[in-house]
């Protein structure tokens, strides 16, 4: 076993998890710095939840090793961790403030202190009137907020949120984003998984994209974006002329609109060629790709590679 690096909140080396012989997570390496907001992105079924469960110690990896806050036994660090699972759940007969206290008690916070904090947190979040209500009497959104508060009640140094935005309306999504930023400002490490890229783009310093049980990309959001060339949206009066040599040969117009990737040579030579070649520019915009585009490309490539590998294996099997 390697020694863990204390700078990292999470360190995973080549972790593998198989279910029924099939790899749900297939050799993931992941390091997450303390104090950062880190996003784990991936399509449905990519292995995000399984990865988080392994990092948290809910399940053990079949291969590889992981350290949570420097410990190879994640459950032993549970009192420093807050976790909001993808599938939300609370005891329906519990009072709201008691549910928060119970979640704190699970992670070592004395029950009386948890109850006091629970009431205070609910008041701070405008839910003071609901503190004494049973969970079954709350709306879905309120219950989700209660669970989120239960995740934070013991002041964890590391918060892991699995698809935290799912099921929330736009207003509550905004509130959650603010809450994540507030926690990060206090120095808390935040890790969240999502398949809605916009949240990661707004909040994260770094991301990892999981696709098909692997991590095809990990790094800064800007680095992910830079993997794609800017996109040109051009509208011309003319459909033909010498200027056509300036745009990719396979680019077909949609009416008088052209969409293509900015050539390696850059904006200026393109603009020059269009003007000199008599394109008759009506409008021209150059858009830097968003994280969403990068995600689709990276995740898509990974899935395509897997499908090709599967096809090759099948062919070999058939040949044999």
């Amino acid at each position, binding site marked *: 076993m390697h020694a863990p690096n204390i700078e990292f909140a999470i360190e995973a080396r080549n972790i593998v998890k198989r279910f029924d012989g099939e790899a749900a997570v297939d050799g993931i390496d992941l390091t997450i710095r303390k104090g950062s907001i880190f996003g784990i992105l991936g399509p449905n079924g990519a292995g995000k939840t399984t990865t988080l469960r392994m990092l948290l110690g809910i399940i053990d990896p079949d291969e590889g090793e992981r350290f949570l806050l420097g410990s190879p036994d994640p459950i032993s660090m549970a009192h420093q961790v807050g976790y909001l699972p993808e599938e939300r759940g609370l*005891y329906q007969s519990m009072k709201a403030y008691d549910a928060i206290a119970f979640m704190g008690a699970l992670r070592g916070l004395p029950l009386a202190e948890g109850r006091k904090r629970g009431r205070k947190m609910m008041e701070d979040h405008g839910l003071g009137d609901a503190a004494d209500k049973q969970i079954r009497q709350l709306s879905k959104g309120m219950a989700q907020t209660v669970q989120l508060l239960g995740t934070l009640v013991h002041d964890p140094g590391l918060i892991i949120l699995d698809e935290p935005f799912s099921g929330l309306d736009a207003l509550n999504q905004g509130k959650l984003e603010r809450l994540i930023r507030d926690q990060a400002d206090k120095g808390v490490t935040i890790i969240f998984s999502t398949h809605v890229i916009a949240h990661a783009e707004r909040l994260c310093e770094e991301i990892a994209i999981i696709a098909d049980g692997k991590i095809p990309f990990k790094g800064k959001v800007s680095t992910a974006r830079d993997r794609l060339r800017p996109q040109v949206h051009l509208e011309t009066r003319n459909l033909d002329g010498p200027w056509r040599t300036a745009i990719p040969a396979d680019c077909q117009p949609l009416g008088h609109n052209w969409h293509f990737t900015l050539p390696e040579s850059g904006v200026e030579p393109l603009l020059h060629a269009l003007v000199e070649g008599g394109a008759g520019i009506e409008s021209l915009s150059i858009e830097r790709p968003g994280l969403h585009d990068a995600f689709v490309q990276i995740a898509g490539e990974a899935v395509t590679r897997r499908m090709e590998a599967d096809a090759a294996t099948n062919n070999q099997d058939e040949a044999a």
Partner: protein
Amino acid sequence: MIETIRAAFVIARRDFTAIIFSKSFFFFLLGPLFPLGIGIAASNLGSQVNRDIETPTIGVVLSAEETENLLATRTRLSRNLGSKSLPELMVLNGLQGDEAGNIAKLDSDKSINAILSGTLEKPVLTGSERDVTQWQGKITLLAETALSQPAAVEVETRLVGQTGSSSERGQLLTAQGGQALLILLTMILAGMVLSNLVEEKTNKIIEILAAAIPMDAIFLGKLFAMLGMALVGITVWSTMGLVGALVFGANWNALPVPAVGWPIFGLLMVLYFSMAYLLLGSLFLGIGAMATTVREVQTLSMPVTMGQLLVFFLAYSAITKLGQPVEWFAVLFPFSSPFAMIARAAQMENLWQHGLALIWQAIFTMIIIRFSVMLFRRNVMKSGQAARKKSLFARVTGK
């Protein structure tokens, strides 16, 4: 370990208060009174059947000629009446037939229920009231037939307070009663553990628990919360039973004293109930943890009840076979061990064996919990619809 106990306490406290302070707990307390009544009736019926089928041994202290005559008569009569309808006769050489000698023999030899002495014309039957009353008529029949005379033979009876055999029989009754009570309570209460994790799985709380505390603590906490609830129920039922007995003026002296004495027997009843509950409960919790719906739990209830019955039959059949292989098997087989041991407490005086048995049962409980946790972590804590859609069998076997 301390962290596991702390976490188990958090779970146990939540579960215990959630159950005890629910409205349905009142109905839970009332519910078992009906099967308890049936159990007591069944137990009485069993005792009656036992009495009916048991064949006692009567010691014979007569002259050699009369003894030979009596034995031949018994053989002759049993051809027509059946051997079970007449007491076995055992010739006791070396006894004079005096009352003191007879009583001493009855006290020392537990295989003899009563002693026939005197002569065939004036037979004397010495024994406990129950035995003498039950077999007086048959002895008269044997004597009259042996003498081949129409005149009635009158059997003189001499009653002794307690013979070795009647004391043993009393302890056997205590063993049967104690075991029946233990079995009944375990059957009523342990099965409830089956559905104990369904709430967490249905409400999707299980992942919050699993991420925060060791899974062993979840299982332990749930088990002890249910045990606590069961003990509350038993306390309520015992109190009601006691009040009922006082109101109806029960004869406490009629209760056969167990070999270890009532206070220790009472303590052992609580301890062995707890162990039986923890052993079966940990198994049921492990099996129930694989179920994802109430329907699956209901499906599991029947085979689980059958399994319980098998264990109980094993323990019950071993009561009268102290020290024999089948009884040792019942003592050592963890699930029947508490029931077999309470029967021992009623019939054997030594206490150290109970310490060993309790340790053995506790170790096995921990082994079952570890195994259940391992299965649960391996086969249940998977993400995605595919994992949830797997059949119960597939989840248990990991296939």
